């Protein structure tokens, strides 16, 4: 059976890694292989985008904690025009949704975890809202330049894991009362497309399907032997994978259509830090 570190907890990043490329999962989480990742101009572009995305999540957190806008604004303005633009969109969203999407008790940057079969699962939420009417919203900030299609968003592990874990572990935030699937919705909010968020409503049937999916997926991972973690056959996933040279895969730049359609999935093939936005430990 697979040997993971004793304190390993499955997150959306590791599960998505496995789905994108089992080999990558193996190299990153089992072998812990650190590899010099591809250089070139794009590396700085990714790093810059990563740091802006981190800054934006950070700002949203600060705003949720009640830090005054006028203290935050000069720092944002100086940092970058793009970040400032996102910030303005966020402020507007905040203003407009104060009582609706954002109305209720707020839990910014909260982590929930639950056992499933032989493993534990973990999700770190950008913002969780317990609405006064008993409904729950999961808000996830996205800074990708392209807005992924609804289909691409629904296919993300995150879209299954986050609502699932809220139902499984939400009682701890709800005075011991279980959170029902029908009470949960997940909102992807796009800083570059603020008028076009994606809302996913949860249901009992979906909860059951997600549980089966997550159980099967994690059991499959645990049941594999080293040699069974095959490389993906879709070489586009290798484009920005840190192990591209290790796997001796050629650089196949994704076409602009693919970038548009799979922006989110492509982001998930970025270096580990990128995927860990919101899962950064101290």
């Amino acid at each position, binding site marked *: 059976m697979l040997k993971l*570190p*004793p*304190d*390993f*907890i499955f997150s959306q990043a590791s599960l998505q890694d496995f789905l994108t490329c089992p080999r990558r999962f193996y190299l990153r989480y089992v072998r*812990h*292989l*650190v*590899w*010099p*990742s*591809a*250089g*070139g101009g794009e*590396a*700085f572009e990714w790093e810059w985008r990563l740091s802006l995305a981190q*800054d934006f999540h*950070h700002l949203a*957190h*600060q705003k949720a*904690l*009640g*830090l*005054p806008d006028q*203290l*935050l604004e*000069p*720092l944002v*303005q*100086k*940092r970058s025009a793009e970040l400032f633009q996102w910030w303005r969109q966020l402020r507007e969203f905040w203003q407009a949704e104060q009582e609706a999407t954002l109305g209720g008790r707020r839990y910014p940057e*909260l*982590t*929930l*975890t*639950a*056992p*499933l*079969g*032989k*493993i*534990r699962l*973990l999700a770190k939420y950008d913002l969780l809202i317990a609405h006064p009417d008993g409904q729950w919203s999961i808000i996830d900030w996205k800074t990708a330049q392209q807005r992924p299609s609804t289909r691409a968003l629904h296919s993300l592990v995150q879209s299954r894991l986050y609502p699932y*874990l809220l139902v*499984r*572990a939400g*009682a*701890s*935030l709800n005075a*011991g009362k279980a959170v029902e699937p029908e009470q949960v919705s997940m909102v992807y909010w796009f800083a570059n497309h603020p008028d076009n968020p994606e809302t996913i409503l949860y249901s009992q049937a979906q909860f059951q399907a997600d549980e089966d999916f997550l159980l099967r997926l994690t059991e499959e991972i645990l049941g594999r032997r080293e040699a069974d973690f095959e490389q993906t056959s879709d070489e586009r996933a290798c484009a920005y994978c840190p192990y591209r*040279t*290790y796997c001796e895969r050629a650089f196949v730049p994704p076409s602009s259509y693919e970038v548009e359609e799979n922006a989110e999935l492509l982001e998930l093939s970025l270096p580990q830090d990128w995927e860990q936005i919101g899962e950064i430990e*101290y």
Partner: protein
Amino acid sequence: MPALNRQQLEVIQRPLGERCFLEGKAGCGKTTAAVERLLYLMQAGVPAHQILIYVPQRTVAQPYRQALSVPGVMAGGAVTILTLSGLARRTIETFWPLVVEQAAFGQADEWPVFLTLETAQYFMAKLVQPLLAQGYFASVNLHPNRLYSQILDNLNKAALVGFPHTEIGERLKEAWSGSPGQLSIYDDVQTCANLFRAFCLEHNLLDFSLQVEIFIRYLWPDPLVRQHIQSQYRHLIADNVEEDAPVSHDILRQWLPQFDSALLVYDHGGGYRVFLGADPSSAYSLKQACEVHFTFETSFVTNAALQRFEQSLLWAFGAPPPAPPPQTLHPPIQPLFERFYPQMLERVAEEVAQCIEEEGIPPSQIVILAPYLTDALRFTLADLLEKRQIPLRSHRPSRALREEAEIRCLLTFAALAYPEALPPNTLQEFDLIAALLQAIDGLDLARASLLARIVFRKTDGLPTLSSFEQIQADVQERITYRVGERYERLRRWLEDARSAEPEELEIFFVRLFDELLSQPGYGFYRKERCGELTANLVESARKFRQAFRESMNISMEERNREYLRMVNEGLIAAQYLRSWQAEDEEAVLISPAYTYLLSNRPVEVQFWLDIGSSGWYERLFQPLTQPYVLSRRWQKGQVWTADDEAQVAADNLRRITLGLVARCRQRIYLGYSEYSAAGYEQRGDLLRVLQDSLEMAVRRT
């Protein structure tokens, strides 16, 4: 659930609303009880996100992390695990806008940059080097890198103990009783500390000391911040409080009344991190802030014979003699005494093999301890154990990347691609020989030397490489055409890099690795270790780049030069230890004794090497700092004397021997050679104490 005794259960099941202080020596099940208390709280309905585990360093939290990751733990939020530095950094990041002006940072509209130890050392070096040229520290015989780190250390002490950094020099001077020449050194220390702090403030750079100070002085007292932190965490478990610094204790003291429950765990005989500000007596004063007290006395770790040995050790340290044991207990101490050091190491390797092969002790249950862990010792032991097919891992966090041959190879090529980066004549022929040996597959020393002798040129002291084609045909043949072809490709690659627009060093290293060294025919091909080392160097160069801000007005070329120079001087590029590396499973561990003690992990068998050495208990030579004088316990006006020094050594000896025994289950081997590795006779106090206590133990049985 582990088997728990009545006392442990009592601690675990205490009602909410209480603050408990749990003390006892190592191995008595305190952490086990605290971990179970955590699980008990969660079972009792306490939301996990309201629980804070507070530890002096992250490794101490491993038992908690492990307990929380098992599937059996109920669903809910995540328990937070923090150190003082984590709490400070997290709070500064979140509430930075509240302090940027108040603390007089120079760039009011910029985010902070958190310095790593190496980038802090770099900026310190940058500020201090011009002063060295002016005669500062002239009378100190110390490598500049140690000089920089000791000044930083002083700043850290000031922050952790809680006194203004401007008092460092004065405090050191006041306690000094030696030659008056040293006093001006302390003035130099103060000047450099002030300069560094002013520079950090001007550019929003936060080294460890400034992080702690900003948190303590500005953020913790701020009502918004305090409210946020205190409402977030309602339950506290603080483990190994004796290894934490006084300001950490101050925070806990103020915070304790606000918690709905708290458990503080204190280890008797601890305080190993004194160099990092640990203050057991300040920690012990927290007992008064707790209404319920527990003391655990029975060891779960040591067997009866080792407990007996512990008593005779205590006697050797001045306690009354222990009562004779009810049955004959031979001390489980095995001397490995040899005349010379290499023989002693050979014996150690033999005994390790015997433990594993004949007694079935897993390698992970064996630890080899030494007062210092030198490269020579590590390599010799690794070699001796490898011959016996025994894996070895080491705890030695600060190893400069430059010490790795593969890294030196990358640096040599960087110096050839950017010849102006290093001072003239820095690069020598032997550097090129070593680099070629690493880089080109199938090259032996004789050919590498021959090739290097011919192609390595210097123009005005700056290195260049000439072409293989210019070499005489018979010599080409000796070197071989295959090697020649590989060399030529490498040379042209470097030539291209040299004539192209300069690029960030991290990109240069990745390209060199990617396009050349990891290709078939080159030395890094399909070698994971080479990949990892290159990745470490790339990461170090990246962190270095990220520490610079626009306000410093430094060009990329200049920054690259600085980086290469600093790595070359061994100042930066410490090995990057990733969290998982620290826990390499099934291997024998070799570690300096203090590092092992801090990891708090009992084992079946310990080997103590070099018990004749005084390095087990003597203070390191640190002419620019003094952890005891800069501690909170030190009285103003007191003078540090030889008696104080002797007392510290005696305390260290006691603490370390008893601490190690408490972390051993079965047996201790004592490695001693009449002559040390350097050929000196050794008769330190540890040897004496061990002899006395062993004699006593044998007499009493």
